[in-house]
């Protein structure tokens, strides 16, 4: 590693001798030259901080998170920071170490109408004419480069080729000829329920995965305890993994990932409402803390909030075709555009429009809580999800049971003037829950009040706050409402700002008032 760095510095010397000093502190290579001055200072303070085991950090994390988000914001904010394609940045491009480069990746699958997977069927098929070959183009000429330490998102509909792309990256699928996939360092994929031998214990699985990921037994031996305690599975060390729940497995996978020395992580819908609130919080911390800094992440998710919060850049896959890469916010916009084009408008949309009520919520600094009452019945809730999409899209929701109290949580992504995100709603009242193995349907009981604690979190604010602090910052929520007069059926939004640990962090206390 040291050698590599020296080399790079040397290269730079030829072009820009001023970069030499800064190179030493470089952790993220993604800002433009204008920002260098600022960045160097920050990273100088960063690099003095010794790297710690994520476990040890936990106590400090809460407070650090806050700072971290603020520290990171200018980087995220730079509008012109990471457009590789722009020739303007050619200088800074030299300083970026490309860890993963994907060139000309296309993939076609050949499928027969009737399956042929035995020798008998194969012979039979030779004499049959009705079984036609179909080719499915899963990926069409995908090209992108991921820089070291970058978080790269891949978004698209179901069946748009996201998982195929990840499989190509991990090497379990071979793309069509003429492709080039280069990567530096080990790659690990994290997907739900994969990666473990169900018949052996957690300990053995840790050794197995760890050794494949390049850790020596000695190191693994030292890490086992902290992996298990991170995953909160100390009591199940010697239980075969087949007895684990999906949540436990993904916790274990994440704990191994975070302790291992893989350099590129592929997340395939990994953060999807699995793991209880506590663990989600923990994994989010990992993202804001040490884990995220040096590791490269390629993330596939339907959770646009997450993509927006975590990823620097993203590509959109539309039926195998690549759009982008763009900055993640832009990519999400593009994705939503594509979504509008491809999805047919639901017929009941007219009805909803008739009953549309829009509320401007304005931060006027006077009141403590934003309380707006509206009726969202059971059927309305589902409609709400639809009608809010795509400008306001609920992207994720789930139920967790903590000490017998059922907590529903879902994320709402609001498109606002200020890039404000609201996420992490928690419904703490009784809920009628219908849950199957993989999906959970939330049903609100119409009779009751729901207190919705809404965490206001956004990394995008600080810069704009600097500009807009004296102005009124508002956002608009369009909600379809059945009957506003029935105030008994109401939802209250308590906006809490501090001490929240999530991927996004609140930076300011928001005092919002409902205005009709």
């Amino acid at each position, binding site marked *: 590693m040291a050698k590599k760095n020296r080399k790079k510095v040397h290269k730079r010397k030829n072009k820009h001798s001023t970069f030499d000093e800064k190179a030493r502190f470089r952790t993220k290579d993604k800002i433009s030259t204008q920002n260098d001055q600022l960045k160097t200072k920050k990273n100088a303070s960063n690099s003095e901080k010794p790297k710690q085991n994520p476990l040890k950090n936990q106590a400090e994390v809460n407070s650090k998170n806050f700072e971290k988000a603020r520290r990171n914001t200018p980087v995220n904010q730079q509008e012109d920071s990471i457009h590789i394609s722009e020739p303007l940045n050619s200088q800074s491009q030299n300083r970026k170490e490309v860890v993963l480069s994907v060139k000309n990746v296309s993939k076609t*699958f050949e499928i027969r109408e009737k399956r042929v*997977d*035995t*020798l*008998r069927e*194969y012979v039979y098929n030779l004499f049959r004419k009705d079984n036609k070959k179909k080719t499915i183009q899963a990926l069409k000429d995908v090209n992108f480069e991921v820089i070291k330490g970058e978080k790269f998102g891949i978004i698209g509909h179901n069946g748009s080729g996201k998982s195929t792309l990840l*499989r190509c990256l*991990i*090497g*379990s*699928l*071979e793309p069509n000829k003429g492709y080039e996939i280069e*990567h530096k360092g*080990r*790659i*690990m*994929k*994290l*997907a739900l329920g*994969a*990666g*473990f*031998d169900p*018949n*052996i214990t957690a300990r*053995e699985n840790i*050794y*197995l*995965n760890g*050794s*494949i*990921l*390049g*850790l*020596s*037994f*000695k190191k693994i031996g030292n890490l086992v305890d902290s992996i298990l305690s991170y995953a909160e599975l100390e009591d199940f060390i010697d239980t075969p993994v087949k007895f684990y729940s999906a949540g436990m497995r993904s916790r274990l996978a994440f704990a191994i990932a975070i302790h291992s020395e*893989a350099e590129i992580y592929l997340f395939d819908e990994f953060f999807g409402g699995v793991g209880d609130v506590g663990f989600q919080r923990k994994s989010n911390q990992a993202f804001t803390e040490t884990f995220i800094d040096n590791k490269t992440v390629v993330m596939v998710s339907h959770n646009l909030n997450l993509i927006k919060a975590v990823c620097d850049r993203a590509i959109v896959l539309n039926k195998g075709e690549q759009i982008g890469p763009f900055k993640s916010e832009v990519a999400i916009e593009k994705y939503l555009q594509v979504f509008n084009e491809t999805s047919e408008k639901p017929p009941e949309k007219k009805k909803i429009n008739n009953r549309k009520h829009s509320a401007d919520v304005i931060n006027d600094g006077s009141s403590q809580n934003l309380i707006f009452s509206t009726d969202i019945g059971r059927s309305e809730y589902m409609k709400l999800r639809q009608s809010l999409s795509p400008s306001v899209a609920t992207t994720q929701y789930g139920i967790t049971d903590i000490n017998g109290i059922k907590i529903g949580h879902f994320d709402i992504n609001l498109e606002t003037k200020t890039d404000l995100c609201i996420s992490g709603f928690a419904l703490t009242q009784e809920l009628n829950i219908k849950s199957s193995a993989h999906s959970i349907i939330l049903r609100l009981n119409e009779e009751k009040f729901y207190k919705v604690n809404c965490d206001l979190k956004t990394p995008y604010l600080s810069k704009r706050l600097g500009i807009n602090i004296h102005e009124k910052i508002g956002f608009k929520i369009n909600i379809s409402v059945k009957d506003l007069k029935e105030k008994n059926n109401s939802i209250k939004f308590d906006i809490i700002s501090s001490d929240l640990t999530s991927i996004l962090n609140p930076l300011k206390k928001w005092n919002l008032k409902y205005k009709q």
Partner: protein
Amino acid sequence: MGLVNRILGPFLLLLPDNNRIQRIWKIAQIDFKKRYYNDSFGVLWALINPFFRISIYYFVFKTIMNVQIENYALFLFNGIIMYGTFGEVTKGGMNLLQAKGYLIETIKFDITDLYISHSISVLIGFFYNILAYLLISVITGVALTWYVLLLPFILINVLMIGVGIGFILSVLKIYFKDIKHIWDLLLLAGFWVSGIFFNSEVLFEKYPVFVYANPLVGIIQHTRNLLLFGKGLDPMLASINLLHGIIFLVIGYIIFSKYSKKALEKI
């Protein structure tokens, strides 16, 4: 597992701090463990099994059928464990891509490691068998010679052939599920023609071409030479068997590296 760890644990310390070797060892260990039920007593079965089998052979062939060949129980067991090793390597290898799919899908690594690991886990099984065999041969007073030390050569030869075939089969298995049954049949046929039940010297005199074409005849003959008859290797036969091994391994590896990725699509 306690017993295996106790017996094989010391070997672990001998392993260099090389990640690849450790990985291969770990996969082999888990493989073996899973086969023997995951506990100490399970591993005991690995020892009890060969003792029991030799006793049965002795009872049936010596006492009931009164076969005149000297030490027929050992003679038989000899061939059977060698052929069993071959069968296990090929059959296990055939299923490897599917059985270890969860790893291939998750982490990028050299898939051929899996085959090496599998061979090692089969070798651990062989180790128990040969332990039982040697014990019994000492008990029954069969003189052991220094030729026993040549056994690893035979084993490597078997593994080369087995892994080569395993490479091919594992790819075929994904395209054609029923290859499993076909291979079972072939193995059964091989069991009866590879000179397990009779002394293949007869075969060698009558049909030398057959002996050269079927490497297992030579391998089983050699195993007996080393363990039972106190004889060395036939250089001609040994080199032809080695050639078999190299050819199988090379062809298998070429087919595997060319088609395994394509086959993995279908999993």
